[in-house]
């Protein structure tokens, strides 16, 4: 991230493509006049829907491509407006912000990506980065939990990954009709389906906080170190660079010090209702 202007003034970009992932989730490709953006897996941008507002949205693209991709769920006025953008529409982009997934420092280790719902979007750049240098890592597993089969995002990509012999992909849903042939149950149950060396593994976890808490507990029960379990937190990010204090999380600002934290660092904070 550059100087103050870069941090505070949005670049005005255009939506170049729009893909519907599920009934309320859309992926937008964005182009800015400044050209491709350099970002690290796990970082986020502040996206502006002009006339409506700004919201923190994780980058969900492949960092090697340089393409700026965001996956948004329509849950409030800003995110709904972002989801309604069409190719050619203007969009504001401030960022990238935050500390991402330490994918490079996990080389030689087994990797577990555990995603819940929209949490697959912030993990996707890290998965791409790991697969781009596949031989440098040990076993890689992607465990994904979703509400129902029709709410699964990046479905075609998941299917393609599932077809690879150097990757284990398991998906589960909370409930399904008879035509679903995958797992049904909570995502923590999938952890028992994966073989990994607990001492030589790094887990990248992203999803609703309650899900991340239970996943972290299940990984600790498998004897993983708390420092090797990384979680992507979500709070009310506003400025994006630790000045406004809206996303304060104990001694941290999620936008500046996170969103990725080691479970060891935030375990006690996750139990505090006041924050």
């Amino acid at each position, binding site marked *: 991230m550059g100087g103050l202007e870069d941090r505070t003034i949005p670049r005005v970009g255009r939506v170049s493509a729009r893909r519907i992932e599920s009934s309320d989730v859309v992926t937008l490709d964005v182009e800015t006049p400044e050209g491709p953006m350099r970002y690290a897996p796990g970082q986020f941008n502040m996206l502006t829907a002009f006339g409506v507002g700004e919201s923190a949205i994780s980058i969900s693209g492949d960092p090697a491509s340089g393409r700026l991709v965001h996956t948004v769920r329509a849950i409030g006025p800003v995110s709904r407006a972002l989801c309604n953008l069409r190719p050619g529409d203007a969009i504001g982009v401030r960022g990238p912000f935050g500390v991402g997934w330490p994918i490079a420092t996990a080389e030689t280790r087994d990797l577990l990506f555990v995603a819940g719902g929209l949490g697959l979007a912030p993990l996707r750049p890290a998965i791409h980065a790991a697969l781009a240098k596949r031989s440098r890592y040990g076993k890689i597993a992607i465990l994904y939990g979703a509400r129902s089969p029709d709410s699964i995002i990046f479905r075609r990509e998941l299917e393609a990954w599932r077809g690879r012999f150097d990757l284990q992909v398991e998906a589960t849903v909370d409930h399904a009709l*008879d035509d679903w042939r995958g797992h049904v149950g909570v995502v923590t149950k999938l952890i028992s389906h994966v073989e990994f060396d607990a001492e030589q593994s790094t887990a990248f976890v992203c999803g609703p906080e309650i899900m991340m808490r239970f996943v972290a507990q299940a990984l600790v029960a498998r004897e993983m170190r708390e420092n090797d379990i990384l979680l992507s937190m979500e709070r009310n990010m506003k400025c994006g660079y630790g000045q406004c204090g809206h996303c304060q999380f104990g001694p941290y600002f999620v936008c500046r010090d996170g969103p990725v934290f080691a479970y060891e660092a935030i375990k006690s904070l996750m139990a505090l209702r006041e924050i």
Partner: protein
Amino acid sequence: METLERILGEQPFFAGLNPEFLRLATGCANNVRFEAGEFICKEDDPADRFYLVRHGHVALQLFAPGRGAMTFQTVGPGEMFGMSWIAPPYKWTYDARALELTRALAVDGVCLREKCDHDHDLGYELMQRFLSRTIESLHATRVQLLDVYGAKV
């Protein structure tokens, strides 16, 4: 040749069980196999056994008119299903259907109940194990009911 006792002892549910208790439980167990799509039990059937899945996957389902069969849980290798044989009215409360060729160990609940009645130490040990699975299952059900992946409102 693999003995049934050894196979049963390798199942997570029976892991670490006192050898004498394992021998007693083995007397109530047998190997079973189900083809893909085959019903293993149906709601309201007499519940006289439980299953430890060795290979394949089983869908636990409830049927709702107008919606069809709805799966609320799948069970795979190393997992078990079936608790209704423990307490009256001893009836299955869901359908279980093999999603693929499935091999399992079926344990006769009536036989095991009689052995537990006769040997309370065996009964206490097994009930602790069933209670532990029940708590796990309840916990998972709570998380599913919370609909954590749903949109925040």
